[in-house]
């Protein structure tokens, strides 16, 4: 779903744009390079929304919310810079302290009314999103939207260019903000690219299956897609997955297996089934300390059998044998324009990401939503933690014409309990 934020007639309105930057000037001429892996992700944007209750957030003014971002940008000045290109055409970041766009908005509904909708993809309208381009030098890499609900609740929406970091980085950024808001000192140690800990490159040199080359997009970084995409979000309980779908593996792998099979069944058997999928999850050997970067593991799974007919255990076992393709992607990332999410059916595991640790007045957010913008035609599934520990939020983005069939399959296999029209 391409959501170019415009002020429409929806319940969220009253957009006031300003800019938040750092307080200490960065030395003129400072630049920050991006790796091949970062450049391969450039057509994608992470969108995340955290909704806080009125009790926690009622007294926060705009200045209270803006204030903690300044010391963070002092520590990580390059994310508030602007893109530019070397003579070779390779993009890099000019650290000119230009800042990030901050959008204030109002919502006519109370938080309760907003959260009543079980399909959390409505949260997409709480994220002010603009793509990078057509002028790189004037495109912010991060947009922050602050929405005030009628009851005093607060939603913070982030649109985050994937070239600077992954969903884990967004959570890290949000956590830093919450800590700075609480009055703690924020310190981010500098990281160098050499400590990236990528696995050794594949000597066969074949192109990674998890990404797809697209036609050159020039300076407007919007992932081209043939179909109109739509998003549906639902909750599942871990118990439900583990008990009703007995298979070995952790709940993300089981969930991915179930949904893969449902999508395969919905697309009909034979050639149109997805036999290759991409798994994106945090690197278990992830580098410490945490920083803003693309650290997630991008791996590919390929099966030779028909997924629609296979047993769940076989599917889950194949998922467990996913091969990390980051080095291959890193090598070719700068040469062309690629999409990663949706190049093949993509499953993103964010269930361990600590969005709920970003607390205001020691209260966690009541709801967190996260998705990716610019998903390709094969679709993507994002698994998030829910406010309740035993639950997960699953966000499925697929072409519009496929979504109803997939939802029906998901209900048939028991993953979605009820299916009310339009939810």
């Amino acid at each position, binding site marked *: 779903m391409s959501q170019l934020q415009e002020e429409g007639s929806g319940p969220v309105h009253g957009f*006031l*744009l*300003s*800019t938040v*930057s750092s*307080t*200490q*000037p960065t030395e*003129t001429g400072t630049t920050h390079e991006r790796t091949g892996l970062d450049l391969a992700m450039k057509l994608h944007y992470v969108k995340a929304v955290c909704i806080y209750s009125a009790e926690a957030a009622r007294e926060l003014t705009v*200045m209270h919310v*803006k*204030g903690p971002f*300044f010391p963070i940008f002092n520590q990580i000045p390059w994310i508030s810079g*602007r893109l530019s290109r070397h003579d070779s055409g390779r993009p890099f970041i000019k650290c*000119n*302290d*230009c*800042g990030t766009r901050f959008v204030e908005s109002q919502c006519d509904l109370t938080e309760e009314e907003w959260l009543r909708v079980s399909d959390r993809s409505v949260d997409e309208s709480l994220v002010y999103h603009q793509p990078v381009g057509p002028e790189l030098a*004037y495109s912010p890499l991060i947009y922050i939207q602050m929405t005030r609900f009628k009851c005093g609740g607060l939603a913070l929406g982030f649109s985050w260019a994937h070239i600077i970091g992954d969903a884990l980085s967004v959570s890290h950024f949000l956590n830093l903000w919450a800590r700075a808001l609480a009055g703690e000192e924020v310190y981010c140690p500098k990281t160098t690219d050499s400590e990236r800990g990528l696995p050794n490159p594949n000597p066969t040199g074949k192109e990674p299956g998890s990404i797809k080359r697209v036609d050159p997009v020039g300076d407007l970084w919007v992932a081209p897609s043939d179909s109109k995409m739509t998003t549906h979000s639902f909750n599942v309980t871990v118990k439900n997955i583990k008990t009703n779908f007995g298979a070995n593996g952790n709940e993300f792998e089981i969930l991915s297996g179930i949904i893969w099979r449902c999508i395969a069944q919905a697309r009909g058997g034979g050639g149109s089934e997805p036999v290759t999928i991409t798994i994106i999850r945090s690197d278990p050997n992830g580098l410490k300390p945490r920083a803003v970067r693309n650290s997630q593991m991008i791996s590919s799974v390929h099966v030779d059998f028909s997924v629609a007919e296979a047993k769940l255990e076989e599917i889950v076992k194949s998922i467990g044998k996913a091969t990390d393709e980051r080095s291959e992607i890193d090598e070719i990332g700068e040469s062309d324009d690629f999409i990663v999410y949706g190049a093949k059916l993509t499953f993103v595991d964010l269930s361990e990401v600590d969005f709920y640790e970003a607390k205001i007045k020691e209260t966690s957010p009541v709801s967190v939503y996260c998705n990716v913008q610019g998903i390709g035609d094969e679709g993507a599934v994002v698994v998030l933690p829910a406010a309740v520990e035993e639950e997960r939020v699953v966000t499925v983005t697929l072409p519009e014409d496929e979504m109803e069939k997939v939802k029906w399959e998901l209900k048939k296999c028991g993953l979605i309990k009820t299916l009310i029209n339009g939810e």
Partner: protein
Amino acid sequence: MPREQMPEFSSSVKLKYVKLGFQYLVDHFLSLLLIPIMAIIAIELLRMGPEEILNVWKSLHFDLVYLLCSCFFVIFISSVYFISKPRTVYLVDYCCYKPPVSCRVPFATFMEHSRLILNDKPKSVEFQMRILERSGLGEETCLPPAIHYIPPTPTMDEARSEAQMVIFTAMDDLFKKTDLMPKDIDILIVNCSLFSPTPSLSAMVINKYKLRSNIKSFNLSGMGCSAGLISVDLARDLLQVHPNSNAIIVSTEIITPNYYKGNERAMLLPNCLFRMGSAAILMSNHRSDRWRAKYKLSHLVRTHRGADDKSYYCVYEQEDKDGNIGINLSKDLMAIAGEALKANITTIGPLVLPASEQLLFLLSLIGRKIFNPKWKPYIPDFKLAFEHFCIHAGGRAVIDELQKNLQLSGEHVEASRMTLHRFGNTSSSSLWYELSYIESKGRMRRGDRVWQIAFGSGFKCNSAVWKCNRTIKTPKDGPWSDCIDRYPVFIPEVVKL
């Protein structure tokens, strides 16, 4: 080659000594004249011998009436002298406002906002970029919160809240520094040129600090960037009339309501240069303040060129063809500023220049009038009259022009340039930031003379001369406390954006 240079060098050194000798001779002419007179009297006395001196003494018939009359006469003359002497006006202390760092406007942000707001006028954006590159401003200047919005939201509430923020913070700092109780303020003068609400800003201050009901309050608006020194002049006159009083002056310019929303080039200039700032100054004529006061006011000269039409119209607030109000700066601004300065110097020169410079100027003037009009006019060396210069940081061109006209070195105009770089053009308060820079660098010694020059719409040129009352220790707080070690910085002719 060295041999040829040696005679040149030695001849310039010789010339230097000749000039020094001439200056010493003329400046101390009266004292030098006194020496031979005293010598003659001493020789005469010695020659006369004690007995003759006694005879001379007896011949003066002293009777009581004669003696009493003489005494009364002397007392009378002394009294008249002391009563008619103007009261010394002291500058006890002052505080400059340091904007919060969250209001900082880096160049890149300013240009991006400009592009988004003027998105259908690329030539105007291009113009603003060129101005900013050559402006002499740095990356740490600040604009008020309302101007950070795209587009800016200059409501009256925001303007008032900016006024409260800048004025009250500076005044709180001043009260703390000087141990002044608000109820002890006798005179209050607030000057802010472009924002004049009802009730006035001075009423706002009185309301906030619960000042006395018999306070003498004044609010000067519309008087431009030179209003700071006009307030000082007013305070001085009031302190002559009211004994044992103190006066608080608040100099500021409120940026929020004055953001120009159109795209007329001559009117876009102030958007690029004006920044948030204010200063609060405590002046008094209490004798007890002579120990703690930082400066004594020596002279204040105001020159108004409004009678000349060109000068009057050169900084003119008007509506553009789309109805947007802005300030139009004419292309002749520098020339007019130069002329205003000349007029001001003509008045202040005789008050401050040493006798040697005045003599040379007079001789040069006579020579040009009588002998040859083509002689180069002699520009008096003001560096002999002052140790420090504070030139209003109106823009890089103003400082360059004055540096050239007064033949000042880079160090003399350093305070002005660095203030422009760090704080931008803060209008009437910029002189105080410059003074604070000099103090923060530890350069202010007792007896040093400071010349503050301010230009303003009208067209006005006002000068104030202060004499440092006590050597000032490097302040630990103040607007420069966190960055003075980085200054002076090299400011390139054109900053690459």
